[in-house]
């Protein structure tokens, strides 16, 4: 608890320092250094504070991969505050703390959202539902919390805000906003049913999209659905953040990303391509990566519908990931002139992917 508190405060301190910078590039450098320091601090709580460590690793990825054009210093600071607030959820498992943090994360994300009204239409009720649900005794309270969490998890049919949020809000804020979803999911059978349906529908919507950001949004909907079934997945959180930030880094290089018009070349940007595929395969529950163990545990769920939905969703998500990978990094014949991962990006991706690979091969060693 002490380490988690220190980590949450550390994130806020780093955010304040970054927000004061004038130059976005030096802000990003400072942000990555600060994020690394906080991540190392969070590892002091390992293995009990695994979730906080995973959030901090996700924070390192956010700090290092945020494109400066879309992430001026104040936006970077907001993303780091959101990571700190997410770590705050792990300090104390009490309803009041969770209700306050849930509202605070929504408020910070609101300030960065470009569609403020749309965001408010969905998230003011979400905050009210979670706050009232955490204060009302179960089972009514649990149902209210589930409804509130389902909005942030963008579970179908309350998902409509999310694809637009992913497409228009800074990706660092999007990724950090989703971090604490799994920590507030109530342990009720209805959560698994809502999650299973969201996982399945999100997967089906994601696999047919031609626009990469919309495909990513629905893939994250599907992944959040799996979180609603099985609770927080530390490796899944890191992978979802990694995939989102890799796509953002790519969009900063290319502009609009479409799967209909091939525009990349994996031979020119091999590390970017491997980062995209690696994070994506973790999300798709691929074997020898930590997502596989997470999905395998869910197969023991007593409800056949939930198991069937998760199995199909994971299979379809695998297709979405490879479709995205081949669409973004293959099929282009000319010189793209695109830059591979910068040293800062390379550092964050290498650390995250190595820990994920290690966690996949030896789950006992990393705990995920």
């Amino acid at each position, binding site marked *: 608890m002490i380490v988690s508190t220190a980590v949450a405060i550390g994130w806020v301190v780093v955010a304040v320092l970054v927000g004061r910078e004038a130059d976005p590039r030096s802000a990003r450098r400072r942000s990555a250094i600060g994020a690394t320091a906080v991540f190392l601090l969070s590892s002091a709580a390992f293995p009990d504070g695994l979730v906080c460590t995973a959030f901090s690793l996700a924070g390192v990825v956010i700090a290092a991969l945020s494109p400066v054009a879309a992430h001026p210093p104040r936006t970077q600071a907001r993303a780091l505050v959101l990571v700190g607030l997410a770590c705050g959820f792990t300090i104390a498992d009490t309803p009041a703390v969770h209700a306050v943090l849930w509202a605070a994360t929504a408020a910070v994300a609101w300030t960065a959202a470009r569609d403020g009204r749309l965001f408010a239409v969905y998230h003011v009720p979400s905050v009210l539902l979670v706050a009232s649900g955490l204060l009302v005794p179960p089972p009514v309270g649990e149902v209210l919390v589930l409804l509130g969490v389902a909005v942030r998890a963008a579970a179908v049919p309350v998902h409509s805000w999310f694809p637009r949020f992913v497409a228009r809000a800074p990706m660092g804020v999007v990724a950090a906003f989703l971090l604490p979803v799994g920590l507030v999911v109530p342990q009720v059978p209805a959560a698994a049913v809502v999650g299973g349906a969201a996982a399945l529908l999100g997967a089906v919507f994601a696999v047919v999209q031609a626009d990469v950001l919309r495909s990513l949004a629905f893939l994250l909907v599907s992944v959040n659905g799996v979180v609603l079934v099985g609770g927080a997945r530390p490796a899944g959180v890191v992978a979802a953040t990694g995939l989102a930030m890799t796509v953002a880094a790519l969009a900063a290089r290319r502009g609009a990303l479409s799967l209909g018009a091939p525009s990349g070349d994996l*031979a020119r940007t091999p590390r970017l391509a*491997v980062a995209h595929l690696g994070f994506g395969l973790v999300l798709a529950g691929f074997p020898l990566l930590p997502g596989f163990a997470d999905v395998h545990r869910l197969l023991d769920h007593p409800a056949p519908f939930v198991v069937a939905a998760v199995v199909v969703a994971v*299979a379809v998500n695998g297709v979405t990931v490879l479709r995205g990978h081949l669409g973004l990094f293959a099929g282009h014949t000319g010189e793209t002139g695109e830059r591979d991962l910068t040293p800062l990006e390379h550092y964050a991706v290498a650390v995250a992917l190595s820990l994920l690979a290690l966690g996949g091969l030896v789950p006992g060693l990393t705990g995920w």
Partner: protein
Amino acid sequence: MTGVLIAAVAVPFGAFLLLGLVSWVDLPLGERAVSAVAVLSAAVSAGLLAAVATGGPLRVPLGTWFDGFPLVLAADGLSVPVGVLAGLLGALIGAFSRRYLHRDPGFRRFHLLLALFVAGVQLVVLAGTLDLLVVGWELTGLASALLIAFFHRRRGPVVHGLRAFATYRLCDVGLVGAAVVAHHGGPPLAVGLLLLWGAMGKAAQFPFGGWLPRAMEGPTPSSAICYGAISVSLGPYLLLRTAPEWSQAPAVPVLVVVVGGLTAVHATLVGRAQTDVKTSLAYASTTQVGLVLVEVGLGWELLALVHLLGHAALRSAQILRSPSLLHDHHHLEQALGEPVGHGGGSWQRLVPRPVRLWLYRFALERGYLDAVLVARAAGAARLVRRCAAADDGLVRRLAAADDGPARAAVAR
């Protein structure tokens, strides 16, 4: 022997990790060294399995990987021959590719994927539980798809690689479903049907076989090991390995025979009308694998295994020679001193001309099956896209108030 058995899987996987690490840090490793790593790892894996064979059947529990996932390796009369063949073919293909892909920009990537493929196959072959088999199954699927899309700057291979992967994942639902149903003590009929579904994708059985001829767009050596020999053989291998589970339900063997028979008839008809050698060989492969499935369904397990191994060896040799087909044909004609006859004319005359014409059209269009399936899939995708677009339109109207002030500012 336990260590030797583990090493048979670990060595090719280690080669994959080594080549992956070298590629990530961009070490200047020459073609000779890259090829040596891939070839030696596959050959060592085959050698180790051959050494295991001398000690008789072996079943090695290795504890649990994580909660609820036991690690068990099994070497017996079924797994060792297939594993040795996979290792030897992997080494052969690696050695062949050193010259075939000389100075290709993707040389290292090819050998990396080849090592992953061999590691995945050895895991499938030696897995003592269905759960562990799924791990190797997925690895081979990913390696196969990425090998098909190896020439990534051309659209064709990329699209076909994705199609193969989509088919694999669709059928993996059956395999994972079978593991889940088996864990929960479900009926053998359900387990059998799901296993058959799982095997049909990898083995390119009717009606999921459309990806196989397209998969030939990959480099010839990978086509030889994946689609001539090992990858397509994993479907029948799965059914052979799990026969004790599904044979308790009388309907499953019948279905296995029906699927295999239908595939054999369809593929042999279609293969005869194809105009390029690799597509013809792909359909020939499908025909033989269909026949192996018939043998599996009839319970002739030894015959099925021998047929599988013999077919794998012959077909991979044919595919490796396929780029030199015209050259070989000229040599043959020179040796014969006359044009090579087509043969089969007497059989053709037995079929009435209208039926022959219909059959030819049917074969040329690959049984119309692909067109129907692709149209159905495209229709479903269109429907989902329309739903998503309608939803997006609703949100646009809701968010219009946010855009309004921004647009006014731009106008000013």
